[in-house]
């Protein structure tokens, strides 16, 4: 909780004094972005080593391999939950007027996000076992995605015609909107937001199921 909050405060203070951005709204915006981004990023990066780290267990006892990345994902969900509590407290301290009945809509939205992100850890664990440089490659891609998503960069930047199409189809951007729309802007996310996130989830499940079906039997030889 401390790390994303400190990051949000740092960015908000920098933007407040350098770019004259309002501190309260910006810190809430950044904090909400960072806690969701951390969930996604760690699902990929920590998930990618889940099976490798459990190598000694796997070589002793046969269990469904999906339980190892699932364990990682559940730990990240716990961290995310603490971050959400912090976000709520932060909003109530800085902008209590933001609280509304629409916050209840954030609950099923968050559930949708979690359901869609669960298979990410699973396919990351398979590819992370098959390819030893997967984690490094994923880190580079995630770094690019970090700057190409409205995690801490203002959403208005992504309205630019050159990047608006990308923002429309970017699953991270849409997941962030599922969280921010009811919590910060007192509005429902658009059907496009739900659609892109759902499609992203389906794609993740398809990749995870195919990866496990193809490789689960022989992954033990890669350990």
């Amino acid at each position: 909780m401390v790390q994303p909050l400190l990051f949000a405060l740092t960015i908000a203070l920098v933007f407040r004094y350098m770019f004259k951005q309002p501190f309260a709204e910006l810190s809430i915006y950044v904090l909400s972005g960072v806690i969701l981004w951390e969930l996604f990023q760690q699902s990929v990066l920590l998930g990618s080593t889940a099976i490798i780290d459990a190598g000694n267990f796997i070589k002793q006892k046969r269990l469904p391999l999906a339980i190892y990345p699932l364990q990682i994902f559940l730990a990240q969900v716990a961290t995310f939950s603490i971050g959400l509590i912090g976000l709520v407290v932060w909003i109530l301290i800085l902008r209590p007027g933001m609280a509304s009945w629409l916050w209840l809509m954030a609950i099923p939205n968050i559930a949708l996000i979690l359901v869609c992100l669960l298979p990410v850890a699973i396919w990351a664990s398979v590819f992370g076992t098959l390819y030893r440089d997967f984690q490094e490659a994923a880190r580079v891609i995630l770094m690019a995605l970090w700057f190409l998503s409205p995690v801490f960069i203002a959403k208005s930047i992504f309205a630019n015609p050159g990047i608006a199409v990308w923002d429309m189809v970017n699953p991270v951007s849409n997941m962030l909107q599922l969280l921010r729309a009811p919590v910060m802007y007192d509005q429902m996310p658009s059907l496009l937001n739900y659609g892109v996130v759902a499609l992203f989830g389906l794609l993740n499940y398809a990749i995870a199921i195919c990866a496990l079906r193809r490789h689960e039997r022989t992954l033990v030889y890669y350990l």
Partner: protein
Amino acid sequence: MAKILIKVQNVVLHYPLSPLFRGSIKETLFSLTLGRRPNGSPEFIEALKSLSLSVKSGERVGVIGRNGAGKTSLLRMIAGVYPPTSGSIRVHGRIRSLFDLMLGFEPEDNGRENIRHRGYLLGYTKQEIMELEDEIIDFAGLRESIDLPLKTYSAGMNVRLAFSISTALGGDIVLIDEVFAAGDAEFQVRAQERMRDIIKTSACMILVSHDLETISDNCTRVLWLDNGGILADGKPGDVIDAYSESLS
């Protein structure tokens, strides 16, 4: 007639070598784009070659052979860890594997918590762990230190606790890979007795060891594995003598 608990039929086990040559995204891209594959390199290593074996209830089978003969591969395949490339394995009964005694230990947690970690990993239920906890602690001789973090234990204490947990419950089919004795001389005597009890109470046992005396003392049948196949299968005295002759 004794029931067959383990039936291995024409089993072949190939270790794929592709992890070595295609173990990175970079190498995969190179091999896809340039079609590069090391000249004359095999696709796999044949760890077990068309191996057939039946183990009946009551049998204590020892497996001997040089390093790389396929002993551990056979054990892990029976335990379900390695899927056979072809052939079939049928196992009837609950398997208790003793491959890595220290597996599952968390150095930051105390002895009691590690009893639970290791117990769950071995398939014990919560009820079984609660019932066995005192017996495990007493057998390991760690009553005074059990509530201290594992990182404060000596190597010997760790091994004693690990052995005590792993052998607290037997199973129908016990698979043992080179973990027959542990700890100091005094503990070894108790450990040997515990192992003999496990072997006696299990329906069948397969023991892999380089210690021919241990094999001779505890087994009713011995397999000599060489190059992935069974070279000899018979009475301990006969097979061990033949194996010893081949070494000299």
